[in-house]
């Protein structure tokens, strides 16, 4: 019996052959995502939009239209009603009423009383109320955190590798983040503070792949100083392909489990991470690498060969006349 090998030995896929096509498609997707977010907008949760959110579990499945009609009949304002988990779980979101904290309390009490009397056996799972002031702060902080994380990581890569690699990482991170936003704009899944955390995590993990490939590129640049950059990138990607596939698979296994059987309340969060891992794997191969070509990475990028790995001296010795 042999161990399972998802990637056959001596795999040699010419990943970069279609690099222009993939870059074009990716840039198109980024633009489309930004446009989608701008046009369709994100379905902000109460933590960003302010308002009140009540999660209800009904005793029996209730038609969502019926719930919407009756809640709207209360005249408390435009409600947004969504199913989550199974057919009995419903999230009801209400805008903040005018008149401050007291009015909000009253609205909440009224809503809760109405639900428990209209649908006997319904249980209120959770109630969240966020004032406009706090939600604005949360949003600014979230945006700042995203930008800072991306920058900090790019700077780290720049310090550990070279500036071209920093640019490549930053761009592929931007790609991953933009596409995730686009996904939320299309699906209109609730975008809340948890999703920001998910995106931050994606930033950390999708870069794992990029770093592993970059690490190998750096190693190979020192080892094969005369190789052209395109075949060298292809070689590096192929050499690390098995690892990329296996790790992405373990992550996908874990996250898919979370999406399928995990708590409904964090469904959007789990989906975002799962999606991010898939996009991140793609971008580490098709985005992070081609940028190195455009940024003209070559053996000269790592001049001092003394610091190179064990193989470097060998190659260097061979080159000497």
């Amino acid at each position, binding site marked *: 019996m*042999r*161990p*399972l090998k998802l990637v056959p*030995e001596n795999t040699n896929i010419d990943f970069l052959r279609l690099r222009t096509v993939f870059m074009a498609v990716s840039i198109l997707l980024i633009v489309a995502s930004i446009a989608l977010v701008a046009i369709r907008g994100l379905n902000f949760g109460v933590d960003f939009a302010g308002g009140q959110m009540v999660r209800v*579990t009904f005793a029996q499945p209730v038609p969502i239209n019926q719930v919407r009609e009756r809640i709207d009949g209360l005249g408390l304002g435009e409600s947004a009603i969504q199913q989550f988990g199974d057919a009995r779980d419903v999230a009801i979101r209400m805008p903040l009423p005018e008149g401050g*904290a007291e009015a909000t*309390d009253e609205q909440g009490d009224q809503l809760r009383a109405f639900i428990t009397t209209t649908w006997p056996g319904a*249980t209120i*799972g*959770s109630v*969240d*109320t*966020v004032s406009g*002031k*706090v939600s604005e702060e*949360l949003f600014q902080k*979230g945006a*700042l*955190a995203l930008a*800072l*994380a991306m920058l*900090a*990581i790019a700077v*780290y*890569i720049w310090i550990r590798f070279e500036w071209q690699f920093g640019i490549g990482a930053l761009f592929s991170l931007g790609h991953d983040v933009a596409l995730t936003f686009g996904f939320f704009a299309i699906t209109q899944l609730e975008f809340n*503070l*948890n999703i920001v*955390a998910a995106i*931050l*995590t994606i*930033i*950390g*993990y999708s*870069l*794992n792949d990029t*770093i*592993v490939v970059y*690490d190998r590129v750096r190693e190979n640049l020192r080892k094969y100083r005369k190789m052209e950059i395109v075949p060298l990138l292809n070689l590096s990607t192929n*050499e690390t392909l*098995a*690892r990329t596939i*296996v*790790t992405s698979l*373990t*992550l*996908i*296994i*874990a*996250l898919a*489990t*979370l999406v399928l*059987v*995990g*708590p*409904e*309340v*964090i469904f959007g*969060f*789990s989906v975002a991470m799962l999606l991010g891992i898939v996009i991140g794997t793609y971008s580490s191969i098709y985005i992070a690498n081609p940028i190195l070509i455009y940024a003209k990475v070559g053996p000269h990028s790592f001049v001092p060969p003394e610091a190179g*790995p064990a193989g470097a001296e060998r190659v260097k010795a061979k080159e000497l006349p």
Partner: protein
Amino acid sequence: MLDFPRWKVWLTWVAIVVCVLMAVPSLLPGTARNALPGWVPKPTVNLGLDLAGGSYLLLEGDVAQFRADRLDTMRETVRQELRGDPRIEIGDISIRDGNVSFMVRDASRVDAVRERLLPLLSNDNGQRDWDFDVVDTSRVVLTQTDSGIASAVDQAMGDATEVVRRRIDELGTREPTIIRQGSERIVVQVPGLGDPTELKDLLGRTALLEFKLVDTTADVAQTMQGIAPVGSEVLEMEDGTPIVVKRNAMITGDMLTKASQGYDQQTGAPVVQLTLNGAGTRRFARVTTEHTGEPFAIIVDDVVISAPRIDEPIIGGQARISGGFTVESANQLAIALRSGKLPIRLKVMDQSTVSPELGQDSINKGALASVLATVLVMAFMLITYFRFGVYSTVALIVNILMIIGIMGLFNATLTLPGIAGFVLTIGAAVDANVLINERIREEQRRGRGVLQSVEFGYKEATRAIFDANITNVIAAAIMFIFGSGPIRGFAVVLTIGIVTSVFTAVTFTRLMVSNWLKKRPKELVL
């Protein structure tokens, strides 16, 4: 590779055993945990409100109101001070635009005013709270300094946090968390509290208690227009009728030693019983002796609760507030009075309540997802790497136990996103092993022997493992700094997971591998 120093072996095992033992209390059910002897340390993972169920409130001090109140107080202080001997005549005091200003009738006495007021314009630390300016030779303007306001708000919020703590403790809730956040906010978390209405009512009260004499000389028509005689003010009863009371309070809340809910002996109606301290008792006795037969007003937060007549001098220091209470409302007022007045009004900015049922449901599903993910990832590693897969799966189990143990040790809080972080860690923990194992395969392909392949595999993979994990720590650190509540919980789990997974996936597997290599294996199927 083979020369794993003895001390390192021991250190690795000690770290693992200690962390795993720490995990035991968190994994035991509550009853078994309580059955452990008392001397056994029981570090446990806290459950966040989203898992345990309970209420969260974010309170913010009303700084605008606080500024206004300070202006008001300063106006009174100035008035009192300049009326003293020798009296300095001034015009009306205005408190518009955030400052106190008044005209000194005799312009030559402005310096005397300055001298008289100067000591009152600094706080106890000698820091200047108010700026003194003279406009047009005779108009004095007192402006609150920013630093003065800031330090006063800071002080008030500190005191308010204590008052909030006392009030919540009085409710008899278990293990509330009350933390000051930033300069003007307080975060309150009460596990198990399903309906925060009562709590909000309690915290929304300033509970400023005052006893003031009713001004019986006031003209009824003027009172209806809201105009009071000098030295008096118009307040409202609970039903909205106006009533004129003297400005000077005879008793204030800080003279209380006790407040409790009781019953009226005649009518059986709920009342609030008060006991005054020594100074309060003497003062109350003197005033009630001098004013027997006149009514006095009992005022809470500027609303007159009742205005009983003084039938006889009250000398025992006992007083009673009656007036349309239910048992609950009387009890609540008693709690509020006992815990002292809030030095700054608090507003609820943000609140959230999770029912224990939903929390339990999340825990169950989270646990299921964790176990299932672990089993699947382990199976995948086993069929992919055989022997080295066994090492990774052992490391994965140890890793999971270590995370729980370390979280327990730090008393960290597990939140719903934290569970997601946990599951993510399970998927990511084996990454280091994958990197190492794939590298070993590569080295084997290049024709190296077992020992050399393994050695190179570990050595060459380390750099990438290190870089990849640092970027994750950067992301987690930023989440911790900018995140709040549950997100921080996520960042904590993630960080602990990163550290333990590198330790178990690199150091611990290496220990196992080196043990195996000592047998000088001829072949490595990988």
